[in-house]
């Protein structure tokens, strides 16, 4: 029986100070028993001599300083994991909320995970087909990659994420595949949208959901992605599954981090976010990857909404340093009715070159990709010029490029959330669009491919 303390000194926001504790360690989990018999959970943040600063996971309402009891459990936050978690819905602390039975854990794992041995990591190079042309064709996702979606308020990032989760697969294999979904601080509606869309397509059977809603405690939000990643690592490296982790919305996570940091009276950094936010985000993102000798993998798609549509805001900025590229959604394209509104030019997948080409997708993939990028960039420039000087100011070839840019947005990028294109179809549409341009303009593509595909 662990020792019970009745020495709560003060409660401030989500923090609580307990005096005169013995043998309590950093990150240890505790329980607070209120006068009413209700128990709440907390975690040790700081030890100073015999004083422990603990962080409450739920609200501090009703905690009576003299009559409430605190017990420390002698272990850090753990998640009981099992293959039976597939198809289930949990709250941000890993408790089932779908009225189903408790999980009988096959193992208990520390939610902070163990850092992957850098030498044991293997390089991500297997193509994942998401069925979305703008991703497959131009910003290819590979197994073990972390590729965030940079979105903004009012853009349909949820639809895109749900589409990827539904359609993603590695071609030519039937290795077991799972989706782990962590919702942090999103609205009930948004989480309902994800659950319904997984149910509709039957994807729910291979999905584990961790849900922390906007009206749930912000502190719980900090452990939600860690719960999800722990489950993902278990499924990937113990059960040899290929796991796609979707984290939405990282911005809410970072705000929760700031909330706790402010309550601890830490010196704020940029825009009030704590100085260690980079390290903290890295400790999440770096849990994606593949390990030598294990066939499973963890691929991560974090979604973040850029406040004020500003890419230099600390959250997208720091995320961009850690992750391997980004998919950027554009408000302008969204208004034009392009679905999904992926802004192709600033989007980037740093690992795409490893995942494409002969044997993975098709031999002509890399060169057509570069040609499409170049042509679209030139077409957009031509269109900008047209806005300023009018159509008459453009040369004939620039007019063709402008036409290409429009067709590219309408046919290649805009495909709707229900269309699942395989890579051959994506390449075919790419070739069809490139055929708008005269053959002489396609300097980035080998003659051999032009002979085979141009104008056909």
């Amino acid at each position: 029986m662990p020792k019970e303390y009745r020495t709560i000194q003060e409660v401030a926001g989500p923090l609580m100070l307990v005096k005169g504790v013995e043998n309590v360690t950093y990150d240890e989990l505790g329980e607070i028993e209120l006068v009413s018999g209700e128990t709440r959970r907390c975690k040790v943040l700081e030890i100073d001599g015999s004083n422990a600063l603990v962080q409450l996971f739920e609200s501090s309402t009703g905690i009576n300083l003299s009559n409430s009891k605190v017990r420390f459990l002698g272990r850090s936050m753990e998640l009981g994991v099992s293959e039976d978690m597939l198809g289930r819905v949990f709250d941000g602390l890993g408790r089932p909320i779908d009225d189903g039975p408790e999980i009988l854990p096959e193992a208990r794992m520390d939610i902070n995970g163990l850092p992957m041995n850098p030498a044991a990591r293997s390089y991500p190079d297997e193509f994942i087909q998401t069925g979305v042309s703008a991703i497959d064709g131009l910003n290819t996702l590979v197994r073990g990659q972390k590729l965030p979606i940079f979105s903004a308020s009012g853009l349909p990032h949820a639809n895109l994420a749900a589409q990827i989760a539904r359609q993603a697969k590695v071609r030519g294999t039937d290795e077991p595949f799972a989706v782990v979904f962590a919702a942090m601080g999103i609205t009930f509606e948004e989480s309902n949208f994800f659950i319904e869309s997984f149910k509709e397509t039957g994807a729910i059977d291979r999905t584990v959901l961790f849900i922390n809603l906007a009206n749930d405690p912000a502190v719980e939000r900090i452990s939600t992605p860690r719960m999800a990643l722990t489950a993902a690592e278990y499924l990937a490296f113990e059960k040899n599954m290929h796991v796609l982790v979707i984290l939405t919305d990282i911005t809410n996570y970072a705000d929760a981090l700031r909330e706790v940091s402010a309550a601890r009276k830490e010196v704020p950094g940029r825009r009030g976010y704590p100085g260690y936010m980079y390290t903290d985000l890295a400790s999440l993102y770096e849990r994606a990857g593949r390990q030598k000798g294990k066939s499973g993998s963890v691929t991560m798609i974090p979604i973040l909404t850029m406040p004020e549509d500003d890419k230099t805001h600390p959250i997208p900025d720091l995320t961009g340093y850690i992750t391997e590229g980004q998919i950027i959604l554009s408000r302008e394209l969204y208004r034009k009715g392009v679905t999904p509104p992926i802004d192709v030019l600033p989007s980037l997948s740093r690992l795409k070159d490893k995942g494409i080409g002969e044997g993975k997708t098709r031999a002509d993939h890399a060169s057509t990709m570069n040609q499409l990028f170049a042509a679209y960039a030139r077409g957009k420039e031509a269109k900008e010029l047209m806005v300023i000087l009018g159509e008459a100011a453009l040369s004939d070839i620039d007019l063709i490029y402008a036409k290409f840019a429009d067709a590219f947005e309408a046919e290649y990028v805009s495909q709707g959330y229900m269309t699942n294109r395989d890579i051959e179809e994506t390449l075919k549409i790419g070739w069809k669009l490139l055929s708008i341009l005269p053959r002489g303009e396609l300097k980035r593509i080998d003659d051999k491919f032009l002979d085979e595909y141009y104008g056909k």
Partner: protein
Amino acid sequence: MSGRLEEMPGEEGYPAYLGSRLAQFYERAGHVISLGSDKREGALSVIGAVSPPGGDISEPVSQATLRIVKVFWGLDASLAAKRHFPAINWLNSYSLYLDNMEGWFNKEVNEHWMEMRQNLMSLLQDEAELEEIVKMVGMDALSAPDRLKMEAARSIREDFLHQNSFHEIDTYTSLEKQYLMMSLVYEFYAESLEALNKGAAIGQLLKMAVRERIGRYKYTLEADIEPEYHKVREELGAEIANVFGKEDF
């Protein structure tokens, strides 16, 4: 309050928990079936007004609100100055319920509702781009189809979006009437464009008398909307046929 409690400030002096408090507030809105056997069903909708200093929505309260709400109506001081009411900016406002509501509108009002909405939105979008050119080099530099587009967009703004809340009839517009209004405005554009491609003169098309009637359509009594719509349509058809053969001078 947060300052009094001597809490560490987050952005611009607001408390760091601003975002989660706002979220907790807005999440109280919803559609519920209460527990119990009598299946009481109720909905609570929240419309919050945020007025940021200087109308600049890049400040923390507006941004935290935008992250949680699904519909945004951005009131625009420059529209109000032009006496365009309701001064809702059509370009930066949005609703994330469009997909959910598509079925309802198409079933309950008209099967082409969403299509019509997209048509009008594209016109307004194009207008914003063309406006840049007009500002720099004037209306005359535009091609005839672009001039028609500008006029059609103006018609959307003045004949459909603008609404007089003190006018007996105009203050309330049923969805059916809204659809007919949208159709008239759009049909003017679509049919004129067709005529233009067949060689009609742009000046004559823009001078058609029926355009005033389209503009007055909003003052039609709810009871008369159908017959009046057909009358205006007929007149539009007749006038367009008339335009052929006339030259711009």
